[in-house]
């Protein structure tokens, strides 16, 4: 109790920490519900691809002097739809589409950065995430779009679960698998781009994937798995942001490392039980 009385007032005197926490917790809540579908559909890599696309979006935003979060969201959502269409057309493998978009957008981002030397520092924040990057407008955007993603997942929960378990049976039950697949990838794009200011381009894939992988180790029901992943995710983000404040570390880096430590502990405890 003594600790909380001494720590809390100090940390909450800084509005950027509050903004970071607000935005971070929203992201922490969305990431696993998207993540579980991506991981189980063996589509985890899409998170990384979309984050690199978002980086190109951030660079465009910085050049045009528009809020980079907005340009990141637009570029991720548009690319996600193109990627899904490419996958469906079967002209190239889904995986190759991801690789092409990943390297292509990274190339675009690098060229845009080298054209404009002025925003290197800014960009570093977007690469690795920083709570100081979060502006008040970002919190509103993250809150509204975050709610949209949660509502979307809630609305299509049954359909998402069914196509993830058994796509053909879902189709035969009358579910439009095409629509649900595109929705999932658009939700993933929104989540990834919203998470960029906090966790950063290079680390967002981890926040989407690792809490889910940890929860899967416990072999619970689908709903319990999501619940456990949520707890891991929110804990890691909160802890990461607070420790980045006190220890002056990168929030994104701490978040990902905490997640990996929890996953390792889960493995060890599981082995021990056997």
């Amino acid at each position: 109790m003594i600790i909380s009385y001494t720590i809390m007032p100090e940390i909450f005197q800084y509005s950027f920490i509050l903004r970071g926490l607000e935005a971070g917790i929203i992201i922490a809540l969305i990431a696993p519900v998207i993540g579980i579908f991506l991981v189980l559909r063996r589509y985890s890599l899409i998170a990384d691809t979309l984050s690199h696309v978002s980086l190109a979006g951030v660079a465009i935003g910085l050049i045009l002097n528009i809020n980079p979060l907005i340009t990141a969201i637009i570029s991720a959502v548009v690319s996600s739809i193109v990627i899904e269409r490419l996958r469906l057309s079967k002209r190239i493998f889904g995986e190759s589409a991801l690789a092409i978009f990943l390297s292509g957008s990274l190339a675009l981002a690098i060229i845009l950065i080298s054209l404009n030397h002025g925003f290197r520092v800014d960009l570093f924040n977007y690469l690795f995430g920083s709570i100081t990057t979060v502006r008040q407008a970002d919190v509103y955007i993250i809150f509204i779009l975050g709610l949209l993603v949660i509502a979307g997942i809630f609305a299509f929960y049954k359909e998402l679960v069914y196509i993830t378990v058994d796509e053909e049976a879902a189709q035969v039950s009358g579910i439009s698998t095409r629509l649900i697949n595109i929705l999932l990838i658009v939700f993933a794009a929104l989540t990834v781009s919203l998470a960029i200011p906090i966790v950063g381009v290079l680390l967002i894939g981890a926040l989407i994937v690792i809490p889910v992988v940890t929860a899967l180790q416990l072999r619970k029901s689908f709903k319990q798995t999501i619940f456990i992943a949520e707890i891991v995710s929110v804990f890691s983000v909160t802890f990461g942001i607070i420790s980045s404040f006190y220890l002056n570390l990168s929030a994104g880096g701490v978040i990902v490392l905490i997640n990996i430590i929890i996953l390792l502990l889960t493995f060890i405890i599981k082995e021990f039980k056997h």
Partner: protein
Amino acid sequence: MRKVNTEIIVKLEKVSFSYTKEEAVKNVSLLVHKGDYTGIIGPNGGGKSTLLKLMLGILKPNKGTVELFGTDINHFKDWQKIGYVPQKAHVDTNFPVTVEEMVAMGRYGLRGLFHFPTREDKEKVYQALKHVDMVDFRNKQMSDLSGGQQQRVFIARALATEPEIIFLDEPTVGVDVKTQKQFYELLRILNRKLELTLVLVSHELDVVAHESNELGYINRTLEYYGEPTEFLKGAYFHELIGIGGLHH
């Protein structure tokens, strides 16, 4: 003809389909009537599963038409009348779902957006599990079940939809002989007591020929379609057995 007045549930007319240049299914026409227990048999790679997917609209024919309950499949909406038991290999059974959650999926297509399972849904799930004798396993993980038990759960999922017809794709692959026997007994009960129409795709020629009351033999083209007894009697069957490669 004994089935002149019975409702036609599946109608295929001159259906052809190819994945590549070569046709996997060629010029197939057939009718499945209400109450039929239709077995589709044939060699591996002969187009059995492809035919089933064409009947269900998972694949679209290059030529010919498919009708379900008298409606062209492209305009068919009554999917709650259809139950589907996929090949087990196509379902990720390491998925974190309990038996109950898996069976509840059979009710998903019936409910619109934002609709979460009602008491009625739960009751139907329970009934479906009862039919396949898996009630005691309802809280178990799918991945903890044996192949035969998983297959029963997939049947329960199809039953939970309360369909009029169930399509089964190679349901007994990878299960032992005893389980297989119990499985065919269950299908017999579904067909006779619950009056469900069944379409069963299998490579187990001899078992299916004895269990079904309508039999199709497909090896790209539908080489035989009619009474199983006729098929078993005919020189054709003996010729096939002689060739071998049909028993696995």
